[in-house]
């Protein structure tokens, strides 16, 4: 069973190699003449005001948390989908209950305004 995954390891290592090779090519052949101005962050040609890394709008975090919640629930769909034929109506009812729970959460989040981007 597990040997099916070995080829994935092979291609992964080739991809990693290629990724670093490309970076190395640039390092090897590209010129390197840094100056203070070149190293300054680009902001339409102006000196940036304030740091580039900073606290950012909380809505992004909200989206991230919601994603984790719902994505995990979606993963449950996949094995269920594979064996639905065997489970039959029972499986269907089970999934409807599951989706019901999921929808309660979804509606709550929607009504709470977490999906609004204003």
């Amino acid at each position, binding site marked *: 069973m597990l040997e*099916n*995954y*070995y*080829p*994935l390891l*092979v*291609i*992964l290592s*080739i*991809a*990693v190699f*290629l*990724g*670093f090779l*490309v*970076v190395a*090519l*640039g*390092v090897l052949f*590209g*010129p390197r*003449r*840094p100056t203070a101005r*070149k*190293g*300054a*962050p*680009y*902001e*339409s040609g102006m000196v*940036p005001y304030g*740091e*580039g*890394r*900073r606290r*950012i709008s909380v809505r*992004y975090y909200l*989206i991230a948390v919601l*994603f984790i919640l*719902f*994505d995990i629930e*979606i*993963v449950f*769909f*996949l094995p269920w*989908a594979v*064996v*639905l*034929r065997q489970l*039959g109506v029972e*499986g*269907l009812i089970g*999934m409807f209950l599951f*989706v019901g729970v*999921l929808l309660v959460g*979804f509606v709550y989040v*929607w009504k709470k305004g977490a*999906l609004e*981007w*204003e």
Partner: protein
Amino acid sequence: MLVEWIIKSVVIVLFMTAGFAYVTLYERRLLARMQTRIGPNRAGPFGLLQPVADGIKLIFKEELVPHNADKLIFTLAPVITVIPALIITAVIPWGDTLTIGGTKITLYLTDVNIGILYLMAVTSISVYGITLAGWSSNNKYALLGGLRATAQMISYELALGLSFVGPILIAGSMSLLDIVKAQSSIPFILLQPAGFIIFFLASLAEVNRAPFDMPEAEQELTAGYHVEYSGMKFALFFMAEYIKLIAVAMIGSTLFLGGYQGPFVDQFPILGPVYLFAKVIIWLGVFIWLRATLPRIRYDRLMAFGWKIMFPIALLNVLVTAVVLVLVGG
């Protein structure tokens, strides 16, 4: 065995890399035609050497690293972005089994029984590179672009994941080879039209293509998360983007258009890859066509669309498919 794996892996990786180079040319030529222009036609016949020229130019470009950037992450981010793009198509079957002089060669690297889970997992990883690039650049445009990209990609991943469920339901397997084989008589696009549309839209958002090309919205954020990148590091982002495009077209073709299936493919398995790539080229053509046609959706509407429309419809599609399958098809 190992030799076969290495050869196949190298073929896939090289195919994706070369594919990237020529998809850029394909896009530029096709866009030009749609815009009453000619497009690049100077380097080589029909401009066929243009990607090579572009590559050489990028190799000899100076690479800048901003002073306050997190240098390690700044360098790693493009590599982290390109790796998932290169390996995601490893589970896509290019064809069935080919017999050359008595040796049987399977036209796929490996047939994993949780192929679709693999696709979802690798897709999720590709968000990292973009987020890290945006954060490490110490640039406000990059930060905003990276954040937008992250939020957009994870939001549409929900709908994307749900659109996978339809084909799994019908095929009863998560192996992509089984899914393709299940489509030998009828492609799933006919059984799953809603699922197909959801997949198509979500995948557009997933690979940041027009009209969802928010993260690199040139108009307000100049280039978004890769604004500080130059030279080969920039090339890697560019490469990842286009390889993902090919990958999405391959996955979509496999799930909904019958993958390598086509007339006479049973007699001549070598036709498998031909059919697959013909489908991919058409799929890419539609992507390019959309880019030439549509303006960009605004960010807040894009997020609302993903959460409030795509997600519920995708969920509904799954349930309806399941009910029909159990009550009728079972």
